């Protein structure tokens, strides 16, 4: 076909190929692992590197790029994000092409590409491969899932495929290490020079001509994306780097005249794939009924599927909400508790001891306590993902999630957020679309997490009357608790919707989801995900959370004047108080004069209309590191000693009065308002740090905190006013 140009890898003159042929450190070759999602890419990476996976932090890149060394060699393997195509809408999707072309700051391009393709879905996998070949780097193909293809009666002539492509094709089963040595030998051997000419897809001649003519495009693969991806990341990057808008517009006009768009590219590539595979793939005359088909009948069934989903969600929720409890108790009570007790005994009373016990140990405990939930959630997500079930769950609930402008992918992270927003925000990585992921991350903290429960329980049991309706079936306290769980959802839906319409507006990503064949998850891979999630949390969020805890401790501790102490002691002697009563009064007085107390008093004019005085304000501010801290802060401020229990606290709160009028401080309306405030506020440093880390932009947590605090304040005020208006305070 003379009117079309034939493209093959060596048509990419400016591509960064071969440069380690002259590299004296040729031993340290870097190979990029590339493939569609669900092809077994992670499994192959782990098998080749012996599960030693290091996550690289690229500036501005929020998707995970891991690297490791291929066992027995000095070859470094890069695990790039799975993708169906080099076309990219978001910066996250663009990482693949950028990494392959050496466009990530500080990262040289790889020396070669290991392309993994799924033998059981070969044509679709070759789509990405056809694009990857055009980058011009040496390529080795790992033909994975040979066992799955065989079980379907599909045979693939790998030598013939290799011959036609001009690159090595090695059949493997990533889950079976015995199949890997030939691949490792090939990767260890010198890679350059293995490329032989292979004919690529015949793209429309005009497209090939225009992309070759596009000024300042780093290479043909990038030029193609700049031309074709109209709203994509590549043209944005091209223009940002000083590419010519006039030249781009002119080229695109010509393409428009010829009706050349992504569809033309797709057609050309699939036509090539069809020719390439003709005679290479042999299929059985009758398709084999697969296990996946049988399981899908059950698992996506209207009734049975819904039941299984409910069961899965129940287990998921129970495990993070309840089953993690013993571990969490162990960490906070046994581990941190005994450390604190030790420090209390070993050190004299004073600032150092307080810093150690109330600042450092409490802060470290506050970080570690999240580990069980994070690891359990990631273990379950790993099982759901590796088995292929998570895609079915997303399929089932997609319609529901659309109410908030999201997709089925957001369901599991949001549900887990009812246990704790921190693992949920990390779990939002299962959402491929960047905007959907950020919206999910931002609304996750509105779900009532387990840290709100102590506040709800304290306030409900102390101030909501224990009344029953409908013959004892419905209790008022239960209703109030349920209301607190509902309010977050009710607020989250319009917030998500608004975000998708404004700051995170964009073309709808569509909800195209692959439903991969079911696989049995492998224990080692699951454990790897769990331990990585834990380590990631500690290393990326731990220090910030600790710093915040210590800062808030300092606000609550300082300043302490000797005159305050003398005054309280004098009162105590005059009134004949015992030591613990004196100590409690002293702590309360210190709290009043601390920075935190001053902040509380400064806040009082704003919170008085809700029915709160400075003490409640100070307790709220003190709970910034974590919501549940509000309970112990209230304890300190309302002069309870260290060993007071919750009943004492309820009593103290009920007895508290306004200093000017002597009326009770806590009423039904002010208690309800406090619960509503905690249901909606962002008093959780860990969540905010996680939002910053996972979105890669610290403006998000700032915006999130400001917005949630404003919403919480307004909602608390409305609650108090309405409750008073309805005569709830009696």
């Amino acid at each position: 076909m003379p009117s079309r140009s034939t493209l093959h890898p060596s048509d990419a003159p400016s591509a960064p190929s071969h440069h380690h042929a002259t590299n004296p450190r040729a031993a340290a070759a870097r190979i990029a692992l590339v493939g569609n999602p669900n092809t077994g890419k992670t499994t192959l990476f782990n098998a080749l590197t012996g599960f030693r996976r290091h996550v690289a932090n690229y500036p501005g890149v929020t998707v995970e790029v891991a690297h490791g060394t291929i066992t027995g060699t000095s070859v470094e393997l890069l695990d790039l994000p799975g993708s169906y195509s080099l076309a990219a809408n978001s910066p996250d999707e663009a990482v693949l092409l950028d990494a392959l072309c050496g466009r990530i700051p500080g990262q040289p391009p790889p020396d070669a590409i290991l392309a993994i393709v799924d033998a059981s879905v070969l044509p679709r996998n070759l789509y990405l491969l056809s694009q990857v070949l055009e980058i011009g780097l040496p390529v080795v193909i790992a033909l994975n899932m040979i066992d799955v293809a065989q079980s379907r009666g599909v045979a693939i002539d790998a030598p013939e495929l290799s011959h036609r492509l001009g690159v090595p094709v090695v059949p493997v089963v990533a889950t079976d290490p015995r199949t890997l040595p030939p691949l490792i030998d090939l990767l260890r051997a010198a890679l350059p020079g293995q490329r032989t000419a292979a004919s690529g897809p015949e793209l429309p001649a005009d497209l090939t001509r225009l992309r070759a003519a596009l000024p300042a495009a780093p290479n043909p693969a990038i030029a193609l994306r700049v031309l074709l991806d109209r709203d994509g990341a590549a043209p944005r990057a091209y223009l940002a780097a000083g590419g010519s808008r006039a030249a781009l517009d002119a080229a695109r006009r010509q393409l428009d005249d010829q009706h050349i768009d992504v569809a033309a590219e797709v057609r050309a590539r699939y036509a090539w794939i069809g020719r390439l595979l003709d005679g290479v793939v042999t299929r059985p005359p009758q398709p084999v009924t697969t296990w996946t088909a049988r399981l899908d009948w059950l698992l996506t069934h209207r009734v049975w599927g819904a039941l299984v989903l409910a069961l899965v969600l129940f287990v998921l929720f129970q495990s993070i909400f309840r089953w993690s409890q013993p571990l969490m108790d162990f960490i906070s009570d046994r581990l941190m508790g005994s450390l604190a007790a030790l420090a209390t005994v070993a050190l004299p009373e004073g600032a150092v001891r307080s810093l150690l016990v109330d600042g450092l140990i409490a802060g470290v405990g506050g970080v570690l306590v999240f580990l069980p939930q994070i690891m359990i959630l990631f273990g379950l997500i790993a099982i759901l993902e590796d088995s292929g079930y998570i895609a079915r769950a997303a399929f089932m609930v997609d319609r529901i999630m659309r109410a908030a402008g999201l997709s089925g992918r957001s369901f599991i992270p949001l549900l887990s957020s009812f246990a704790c927003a921190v693992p949920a925000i990390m779990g939002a990585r299962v959402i491929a679309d960047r905007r959907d992921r950020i919206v999910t991350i931002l609304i996750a903290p509105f779900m009532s997490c387990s840290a709100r429960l102590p506040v709800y329980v304290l306030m409900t049991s102390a101030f909501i009357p224990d009344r029953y309706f409908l013959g004892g079936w419905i209790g008022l306290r239960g209703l109030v608790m349920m209301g607190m769980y509902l309010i977050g959802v009710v607020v989250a839906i319009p917030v998500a919707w608004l975000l998708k319409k404004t700051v995170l507006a964009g073309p709808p990503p569509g909800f195209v989801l692959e439903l991969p064949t079911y696989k049995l998850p492998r224990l080692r891979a699951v454990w790897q995900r769990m331990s990585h999630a834990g380590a990631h949390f500690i290393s990326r969020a731990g220090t910030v959370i600790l710093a915040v805890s210590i800062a808030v401790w300092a606000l609550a501790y300082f300043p302490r004047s000797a005159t305050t102490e003398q005054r309280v002691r004098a009162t105590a002697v005059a009134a004949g108080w015992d030591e613990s009563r004196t100590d409690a009064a002293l702590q309360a007085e210190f709290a009043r004069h601390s920075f935190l107390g001053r902040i509380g008093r400064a806040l009082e004019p704003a919170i008085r209309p809700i029915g709160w005085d400075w003490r409640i304000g100070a307790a709220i501010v003190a709970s910034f590191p974590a919501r549940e801290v509000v309970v112990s802060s209230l304890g300190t401020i309302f002069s309870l000693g260290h060993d007071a229990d919750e009943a004492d606290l309820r009593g103290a709160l009920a007895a508290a009065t306004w200093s000017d009028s002597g009326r009770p401080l806590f009423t039904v309306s002010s208690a309800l308002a406090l619960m509503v405030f905690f249901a909606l506020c962002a008093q959780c440093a860990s969540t905010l740090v996680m939002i910053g880390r996972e979105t890669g932009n610290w403006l998000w947590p700032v915006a999130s905190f400001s917005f949630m605090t404003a919403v919480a304040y307004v909602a608390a005020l409305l609650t108090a006013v309405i409750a008073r208006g309805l005569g709830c305070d009696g």
Partner: protein
Amino acid sequence: MSLLNAPTARRMRVTAVRSRNAASFRLMEMGLIEGAEVTVLRRAPLGDPMHVRVGDSELSLRNADAESIDVAPF
């Protein structure tokens, strides 16, 4: 006929993909192009999205996207 109205479990051939948005490009890249064989396997419990087999792979797409794909009996 649009893929949206295609009968379940019947092999169909894609005759045209009418829309040109991100979702339809992604569907095309995943193999839903003119000439491809497609079978509707089922619809989600709430009627949307739908589960189809395209060539060797199975995917889920929303009714809104299925609407702009024309199919004819195989």
